[in-house]
């Protein structure tokens, strides 16, 4: 369960999140929707622990564990995964090397044994197949020269292999054509599980046609101003965010 309480965050002395409160129970998928500049990506970055995102008030815990006093990699090992809107290119480091190094670093931090190379390859092969990723592509440096769709598929591959307890998807649909969107969504849906929570951050309702959330929250000017069921997405699509902008003021 992810609990966020009165979270207040500034970046370069500008307050972006202004007392955000949100609970995502384990096993549920929640969506955050909101206009540009509302603080959607800030929420993801803050939870993941990016420097320059200064928490001035509030708390955030994952399954009772305080996230905010941990380093970035410790949060990852605790089971938090942030899928990037723009995944980074890592020159010279083959995707397989990158993922295996990350996986074993997490395991080590949790006091678990490393995954052996054969076991890792076997698992990776299965997951890659379901995501229509060619194994040869995984021998290339991670994301270098990959298309937008390929990069997003690599994000899903990583989450499937790292098996996090909680996923944050930051604008995962951006830059995807309809076919890629389908593959990526199916990959994410396959990861829905009773012991895993998800927070889907998106500007458009399009993604939510493929990944149906249990709840939708509307984020405007650093606060959740409205929550509802999955039907909220279509309502927003029809009427836009205007009706909520007044509430934030």
């Amino acid at each position: 369960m992810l609990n966020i309480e009165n979270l207040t965050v500034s970046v370069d002395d500008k307050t972006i999140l202004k007392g955000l409160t949100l609970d995502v129970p384990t096993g549920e998928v929640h969506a955050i929707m909101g206009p540009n500049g509302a603080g959607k990506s800030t929420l993801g970055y803050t939870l993941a622990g990016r420097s320059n995102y200064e928490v001035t008030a509030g708390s955030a815990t994952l399954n009772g564990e305080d996230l905010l006093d941990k380093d970035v990699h410790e949060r990852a090992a605790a089971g938090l995964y942030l899928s990037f809107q723009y995944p980074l290119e890592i020159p010279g480091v083959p995707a397989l090397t990158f993922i295996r190094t990350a996986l074993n670093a997490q395991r080590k931090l949790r006091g678990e044994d490393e995954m052996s190379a054969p076991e890792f390859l076997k698992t990776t092969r299965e997951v890659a197949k379901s995501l229509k990723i060619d194994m040869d592509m995984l021998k290339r440096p991670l994301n270098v020269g990959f298309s937008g769709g390929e990069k997003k598929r690599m994000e899903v591959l990583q989450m499937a292999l790292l098996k996090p307890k909680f996923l944050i998807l930051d604008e995962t649909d951006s830059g995807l054509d309809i076919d890629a969107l389908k593959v990526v969504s199916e990959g994410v849906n396959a990861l829905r599980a009773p012991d895993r929570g998800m927070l889907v951050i998106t500007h458009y309702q399009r993604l939510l046609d493929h990944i149906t959330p249990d709840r939708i929250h509307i984020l405007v000017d650093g606060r959740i101003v409205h929550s509802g069921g999955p039907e909220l997405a279509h309502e927003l699509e029809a009427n836009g965010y205007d009706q909520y902008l007044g509430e934030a003021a």
Partner: protein
Amino acid sequence: MAAVKETIDTVQKLETYEHGFVSDIEMEFAPKGLNADIVRFISEKKNEPEWMLQWRLDAFERWQSMDEPDWAKLNYKRVDYQDLYYYAAPKQKVAPKSLDEIDPELLRTYEKLGIPLKEQMVLAGVEGAPKYAVDAVFDSVSVVTTFKDELKKSGVIFCSISEALREYPELVRKYLGTVVPQSDNYFAALNSAVFSDGSFVYIPPGVRCPMELSTYFRINASETGQFERTLIIADKGAYVSYLEGCTAPMRDENQLHAAVVELVVLEDAEIKYSTVQNWYPGDAEGKGGIYNFVTKRADCREPRAKVSWTQVETGSAITWKYPSCILRGDDSVGEFYSIAVTNGHQQADTGTKMIHLGKNTRSRIISKGISAGKSSNTYRGLVSAHARAAGARNFTQCDSLLIGKTCAAHTVPYVEADTAKAQFEHEATTTRLSEDQLFYAMQRGLSQEEAVALLVNGFVRDVLQELPMEFAVEAQKLVAISLEGSVG
């Protein structure tokens, strides 16, 4: 890749400079300072032939009329050449016949450094594991060379240069100074006058050297310059892969290291020369560390000769080093692969020279400079084509990576062509290790140190691939250790 993992473990485990210990060994010194008598003393100590003494004295005379070069982008306190010891050797009454006769403390030193000097130890290792013959140079003298007999069976000569001067004087005389003349530059002249030891390799025609050869240089004594001289000759159609490693104790004073390496490559022969340089770089405030003024040059003297320099430079307070290739024979090939890491207050001015003299000569330069801390890292390179070097080709790629905000990277390429029929390409990039990349890797579970190690390993991968496998792992670890604590 297991190596990455190993790198990360090493980074977590190790102190910044693990070779910083001092060995307590009874030493013999020549008096401090430099004059013709010291040159005579060194020559006499080594029972050298008369011509060698004259050669040294000639070099000394030339050195006296030369000035220390100041064109490099290096800022350091000049060496007082009269305040140094030019000869320091472990005291030993007679030359050791076997390892049992060597000072056990000396053997322990090399053991600590992880360098196997006992052949049986090497042989007892995993079956099929590659064998490395080792020449160990301690301060001014070579203490032991392993696998000499086995090498001799295939006609390969691998010994210290002092021994070569005694056993194979004609071979040495024929080639010594023919690639780097005595008066080539200030430091080469100094080396020619006072060099005390180094390695000598001769590979006869058509022979592929049956094992990797390596030399380990260790500066131990205080206030002592190390001047080693290496001469490698690959006769027609021969092949050899050679590796040198260097370490030194941590000392407050700066120590001088001025080496000369000459490679002679004849028709269809090939020499692969790899260096893992890990001299003491000085402390966090920039105190102490080795001054590394080195002249390395290969002469591809005949058609289709090939030379490949690979260097991993992580140590030294000051590095002044430009391993070069003279591509004299038609169709000869020169390669230079370099990783230079500077951290703390280190300064490196390093690169290569590719001198295209023959027709259809080809060269390739891949240089990766990584600067962190308050260091300065300069690539300086020359690619030139002589008027008759029609069809000469060069490809140069020069990449710099900056870590943090207080370091500097410079690239100074010189390209000169006296023929319109040469084709030179130069690519250069400078990037800062990006916060975004670090955050991305850390979000996936890597600590900051691990993330830096992984990203840097990615940056230098092209060059690491050129190193012999075992040393690639070693080099990868070294690079990571050198950059420890570089991201604040």
